[in-house]
């Protein structure tokens, strides 16, 4: 008798299952981004290869976008979403400048980026971001994000297809002693600007060896008190 009242799990009543989708709104254009924060500089770098599947779309695409005089955004993932995200942040920054008569600081931009990403929590920007720049005191800062806006300030970071190859190398070279050690170490690396740039070049060259989606070239942007500088280095094209 009690069976009559139990829910019957027929096809109609069962939770609907989707057929395998024929079309995805997302694509992964590959690539890797890195950023390192120094005492008075920040290095932001990304490879210049744009791919889809196993094909290369172009060897010469910039994943780096300067939003303010002191903030630079590097993003890997789905470049169409990334471009839309960049434009969104630019428009928001224009409005901020009209209202405050000054540019946004890097920590403020970091928070804005997080909010912007979470705003699309249920149809996310397929973007893996690293935001680098100088904070209001002129010290280097790096913020690293997931696709929906969870973020953290740190001394260095990498995102993208080569992240798993690069992050352990950065940890090895840059990670300060355990946070349990007192006094608390700063979240910037003691490396000089030139040493940091060389480290970035080395890590990309290594990542390009084994990650098929990383290669062709690496674009390096250095932000310091004198302004913003660009460097370009070739990588293996295979």
């Amino acid at each position: 008798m009690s069976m009559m009242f139990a829910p019957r799990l027929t096809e109609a009543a069962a939770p609907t299952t989707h057929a395998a989708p024929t079309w995805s709104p997302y694509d992964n254009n590959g690539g890797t981004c890195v950023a390192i924060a120094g005492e008075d500089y920040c290095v932001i770098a990304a490879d210049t290869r744009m791919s889809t599947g196993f094909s290369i779309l172009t060897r010469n695409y910039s994943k780096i976008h300067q939003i303010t005089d002191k903030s630079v955004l590097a993003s890997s993932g789905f470049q169409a979403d990334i471009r839309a995200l960049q434009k969104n942040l630019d428009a928001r920054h224009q409005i901020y400048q009209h209202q405050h008569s000054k540019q946004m600081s890097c920590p403020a931009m970091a928070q804005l980026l997080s909010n912007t990403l979470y705003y699309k929590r249920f149809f996310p920007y397929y973007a893996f971001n690293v935001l680098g720049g100088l904070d209001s005191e002129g010290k280097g800062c790096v913020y690293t994000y997931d696709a929906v806006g969870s973020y953290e300030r740190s001394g260095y970071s990498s995102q993208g297809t080569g992240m798993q190859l690069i992050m352990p190398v950065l940890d090895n070279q840059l990670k300060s002693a355990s946070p349990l050690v007192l006094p608390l170490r700063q979240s910037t690396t003691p490396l000089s600007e030139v040493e940091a740039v060389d480290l970035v070049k080395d890590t990309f060259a290594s990542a390009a060896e084994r990650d098929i989606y990383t290669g062709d070239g690496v674009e390096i942007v250095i932000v310091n008190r004198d302004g913003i500088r660009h460097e370009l280095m070739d990588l293996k094209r295979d």
Partner: protein
Amino acid sequence: MFRNQYDNDVTTWSPQGRLHQVEYAMEAVKQGSATVGLKNSDTYAILLALKRSTSELSAHQKKIIPLDSHVGMSIAGLTADARILSRYMRNECTNEHYAHDQPLPINRLVTRMGLKMQTSTQRYDRRPYGVGLLIAGFDSKGPHVYQTCPSANYFDCKAMSIGARSQSARTYLEKNLDKFANCTLNELVRHGLLALRECLPNDMELNSKNVSLAIVGKDHPFTVYDDQKVEQFLALITEAERKGKSSGPSEQDRVMETEP
């Protein structure tokens, strides 16, 4: 202007075919302090404004509002209304960059303004915007100075002045109109200052506290110069020229004065 039975709301025509509410709104512009706009033929458009302060304790009211790096405006009339309009215009400019990756051409900006302002002259629940604007900008067609009115009319101008006592400035601008096309930036500023000083009330002179200047042009994003920064431009006119015509010495006295 006298009160009559057709001026209670903006949706009532008078028998002469006038909308009195709109005309009364234009009076509000004449209450605001003067502002002048002029341009040369190909490189610069400038705005100058006389800032007023309600008391010695408070700062002078801002008159010039940047809208985008290629365009800005100066206001005469209800500042609060101007702020709403500036928010709308800034939004339009930002959207143009987002959607079309280009600066909004000035004539399109002004057209949108006209359309927005017109709605409040044809609704029973709204009133006209009580502010006149001088919009100065630089785009692919060169420098522009536009004037807008509470009536939602807008005019492309070679030079213009609006606000209190602005007729004197317009007279100066009309007299010197043919010179402006070939002026350098400094010559333009000088003409602008000389026009502006015609609008001074008694016993006042142009100084860095009450003059606001904005310049936009080729390779020159819209920049406002106030306080200290406007001193370098005030130096383009002499001490005597800073005084208004009503408070300075008469024409004959000026001729007699010998400036070294």
